[in-house]
């Protein structure tokens, strides 16, 4: 197992820049997830780490060794593909043993290693089956088996759960994380599904248009989004934004939104007058008739323990997550209070988050953009 260090990594296909000067470090034994919408460059980054694409610029270090221009087979990594790429002309045993065969390992040893791996993944009863008859979850396990059997430096996974049914997917998310806890393999996992990312990752990099918008733990990314894109991409429903204008002074603790004063975390930097946005997670909104921030109920989505309430305000619709017991009718006028300790402030022009007291405790690594 090894640390993965990516420095100023860049990839262009003609005029199109797929990845722009990426920098991040995946520490030894970490489960790292690259999250972003399709076309954001996350798969290209993964393929460059694997050696399936060569970078236009930058460096990739694997356990301290510069592998930037090495062939895939010289890097000692394992890759799990979205469509698993199980060889249909081989049975489960041969599929799992295939990487060992390349190393010229004696067949008795291959046999032992394959069986050990299959036991770990609880597929030892399937070893002599054809891969084409397997269910989605078992195919996934065979693909994982082929990856871990060789004990490589790291695992790279490209949306490996993308083709599974929702039911299977939840199960596999759990299994993958459990497997990771047992073998502590450095893993880079690419997905566009925030649920997978949040539930499995030690660290997440959120990407957009080839740029890493934020790098941090799931908690940091959810609680302290670095940009409006991250705030909007993570969370279901996403963070609400309320527009306001004017500058902010260091030490400010209050802003005015739609004529109502709102207490915010203490601002830690001076911001020149500009278009700003106040970011509020739906669960940090409560109904309070005394509040000056007002709106009309537009509709509700009942979710059992909670409900999502859409409220039409002067600044468009915002969504609140409130207990399911509250009875609300469309058209009712309500006042909204916001949980001041959990609010985010953004500059709308750049989308960047303003530094406030919520960042004080953050041991967040800053992501450098070149």
């Amino acid at each position, binding site marked *: 197992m090894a640390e993965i260090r990516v420095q100023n990594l860049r990839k262009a296909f003609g005029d199109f820049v797929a990845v722009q000067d990426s920098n991040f470090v995946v520490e030894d034994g970490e489960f790292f997830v690259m999250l972003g919408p399709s076309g954001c460059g996350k798969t290209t980054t993964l393929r460059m780490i694997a050696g399936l694409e060569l970078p236009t610029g930058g460096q990739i270090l694997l356990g301290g060794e510069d592998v930037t221009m090495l062939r*895939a*087979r010289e890097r000692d990594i394992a890759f799990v593909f979205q469509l698993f790429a199980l060889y249909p002309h081989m049975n489960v045993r041969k599929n799992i043993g295939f*990487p060992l065969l*390349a190393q010229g390992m004696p067949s008795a040893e291959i046999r032992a290693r394959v069986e050990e791996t299959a036991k770990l993944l609880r597929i030892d009863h399937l070893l002599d089956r054809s891969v084409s008859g397997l269910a989605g979850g078992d195919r996934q396990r065979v693909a994982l088996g082929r990856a871990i059997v060789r004990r490589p430096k790291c695992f790279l996974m490209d949306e490996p759960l993308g083709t599974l049914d929702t039911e299977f997917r939840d199960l596999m998310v759990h299994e993958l994380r459990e497997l990771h806890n047992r073998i502590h393999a450095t893993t880079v996992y690419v997905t566009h599904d925030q649920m997978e990312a949040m539930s499995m990752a030690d660290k997440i990099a959120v990407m957009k248009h080839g740029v890493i918008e934020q790098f941090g733990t799931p908690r940091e990314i959810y609680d302290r989004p670095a940009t409006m894109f991250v705030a909007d991409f993570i969370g279901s429903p996403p963070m609400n934004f309320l527009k306001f204008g004017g500058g902010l002074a260091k030490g400010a603790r209050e802003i005015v939104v739609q004529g109502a004063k709102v207490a915010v975390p203490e601002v830690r930097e001076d911001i020149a007058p500009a278009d700003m946005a106040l970011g509020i997670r739906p669960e940090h909104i409560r109904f309070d008739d005394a509040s000056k921030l007002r709106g009309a109920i537009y509709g509700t989505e009942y979710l059992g323990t909670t409900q999502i309430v859409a409220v039409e305000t002067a600044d468009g619709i915002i969504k609140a997550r409130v207990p399911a017991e509250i009875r609300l009718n469309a058209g009712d006028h309500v006042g909204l209070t916001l949980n001041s300790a959990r609010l985010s402030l953004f500059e709308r022009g750049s989308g960047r988050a303003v530094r406030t007291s919520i960042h004080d405790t953050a041991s967040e690594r800053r992501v450098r953009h070149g």
Partner: protein
Amino acid sequence: MSLTTAHSVVAPSANSKRFAGAIIIAYALISIVPLLWIFATSFKTPPDSIAYPPKIVFQPSIEGYCNLFTTRTRQTSEYINSLGPATGFCDETVRKRNMVIAGPSNFLPRFVNSLIIAFGSTFCAVFLGTLSAYGFSRFKVPLADDLLFFILSTRFMPPIAVAIPIYLMYRELGLSDTALGMILLYTAVNVSLAVWLLKGFIDEIPREYEEAAMIDGYTRLQAFWRTVLPQATTGIAATAIFCLIFAWNEYAFAALLTSGTAQTAPPFIPTIIGEGGQDWPAVAAGTTIFLVPILVFTILLRKQLLRGITFGAVRK
């Protein structure tokens, strides 16, 4: 099926199935009657073969096969009677017609030529075709579309249109009437078909298979050999059959470029007619034997061929 009483929207009704079956049987009969006719004729005696009205029921004889494999000379009955007892069935049959066997005919060597040339050129065309199709499918080949069009364009005119230049070139190069020359020629004609057919098949194989193998420690060539080829067998088999059928049946070039040592069966078989009258049973026997290899090859690869020509429709 539990829904036997329900009317399915997509499944054909019993009547339409019967109708389709009748058409298929009728078509099969029309196709197979000439083959049966040749097969039957090969077991007739020469008088039976030209009888009118044609004989459906006849006394089978292998005289046609005897005549196919031998050359015979006419002798007086005194000379024939002076010979010892006949050494076999063929000997006996031939003597009844006042002839003796003078030696083996050229059919066997011509047939062997056909085998060597057809299978040799098929192997070369499929081998080259697979490699180039893989290249076109997986790599960024400069001017790939133009090259593919150029490869296809060699099929725009009938091969025989270039027969004269090829004849002249072959004479200069000393390739006339050689097996090598014929293999090269048939390979050149077939390789365009092979590239186009196989490119379609290889495009269908996801490149993740090779990528997975290359990450797992194999070189590209090993990855191709171990993951792409086994999955392309269907396409390769179908392509091989098409190439083989062309090379096996080709008549025009063979008649023009081969005359002796490298002559193939198709130009040879008609020459049998000339030897001692119209020997239709011998011609039919030659044709029957000529059909065997291609029939066996096709039956062996039947499954792949069926999947091959319907591919795209059933693959996924």
